[in-house]
């Protein structure tokens, strides 16, 4: 999957959409880590996964409250 052409714009949009009050320095930290994080997520879109079910389980019976 291609990386966004403007990483800063992509990160800024995601952070603003989430309502996170990052400082400028914190935003820069996110911009710096984003390419590796994005590449890691993209590495999971491989043909071998094409017909896999997600490892998620839902049961309609509520669990006992602990």
């Amino acid at each position, binding site marked *: 999957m291609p990386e966004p052409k403007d990483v800063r714009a992509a990160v800024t949009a995601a952070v603003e959409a989430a*309502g*996170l009050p990052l400082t400028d320095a914190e935003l820069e930290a996110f911009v710096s880590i984003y390419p590796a*994080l994005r590449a890691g*997520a993209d590495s*999971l879109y491989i043909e071998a996964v094409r017909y896999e*079910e*997600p490892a998620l389980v839902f049961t309609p019976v509520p*669990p*006992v409250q*602990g």
Partner: protein
Amino acid sequence: MIGVPSTLTEAAAALRSGTLSSVALTEAVIARADALDGDLGVYITRMDNEALNAAAAADRDFTAGIDRGPLQGIPIGVKDIIATRDAPTTAQSLILNPAWGAGIDAPVVARLRAAGAVITGKTTTMEFAVGMPDANKPFPVPHNPWDLERWPGGSSSGSGAGVAAGLFFGALGTDTGGSIRLPAAYCGITGLKPTYGRVPKSGCAPLGYSLDHIGPMARSARDCAAILEVLAGYDASDPTCSHAAVPPYLAALTGSVKGIRIGVERVNHLTAPNADPVAVAAFEDAAAWFISAGALVEEVAVPYYQEIRSANTVTMRGESTSYHLGDLRTRWEDYGVHTSKAVSQGAIVGAADYVQAQRFRSLARRVVAAMMEPLDVLLMPTALMGAPRLAGLDHTSFMNWPTFTQPWNLLGLPALALPMGFTAAGLPLSMQVVGKPFAEATVLRVGDAYQRKTSFHLERPTGIAAVAA
């Protein structure tokens, strides 16, 4: 002050032989905490009075001929993200509502009490079990007993440092990406992340719902087996908890690895950037020992290793941001500076990415199971470095360290970290034994056999020698 035994097993034997009472043992570890904890930062909350009361009850039981098992009368620490009825649970955070967990024992704590354990206090953690220490927040910064200028690892920092320093004989830790095993590694002790679902995790503040595990930390694999035997088993309050039968872990410790099939994983570990060559050599020595002890050792490669690490990261980011986003929006400054960065990164990965990570997880579970089918366990380093310095710690540096714990959270497999030597500077080094689902007995057997022939796990920390003298 009495001499404090080295291990939980030795302490349990002394209690039964009558050479030691639980009250005397508890008084000794309380005195040790008085002397050391100002430097170590092991405890957030000490429960001296409650501990002495529990110790007196354990002694009364011994006198009456009641023996609840090897934890009876043994001082144990509990990580402060796990609820205890008689002390607050803070998650080392200003964020967690003090009403959370108030007056309640998590199932694991209730099981410890029922086994007669003496809970001495709540131990320091990285905030919400993630990130790095933040000295600007009103909580102790944990220090490594091998070198007070170094980090004990995280996030079960106080549990690891406390066992190493002899402030208790076992502890509860939690592990979402290595938080039992890395403090065990850096503090020179033994720690087990059990199979996902083996131990109920209700009553524990979450970090990554599908990655979180509670497990034992202690000096030895035998000590961990004794604790796991108490912790393991189904509890209806945790919907992810397994009904699988709990085998007798202590009885599985034969002292032999003859015929055990071990896959040594070098290819994804030993050439990692920043690996300490001394650590690589220590790992090779350990692998050679298993051959000499009669194990059937072969070279293996974990398939999709880097992708497994990436899927763990995506999963943890998504799950932790889900839990924290409301507070992050309104109380950003109340989080530690490293925590807020760590638990907000789910905002920059997508919902589809999270589901894709779970689809990849299905694939990874299958191909790793196939790789492990002809084996009993895998062997690999926990980390190829000693404990890092506290000064300058940040999340970026963490990403560049040669640590190898995350894959076993994504796959939910049992993983034991145990000491394998020391760096040139005298800091502990650690390897991992990874087993098949619910095969903790085999993992502990392998670790125990190694520890019967080595003494790395019994070495005393050098960083507190002057303080303790």
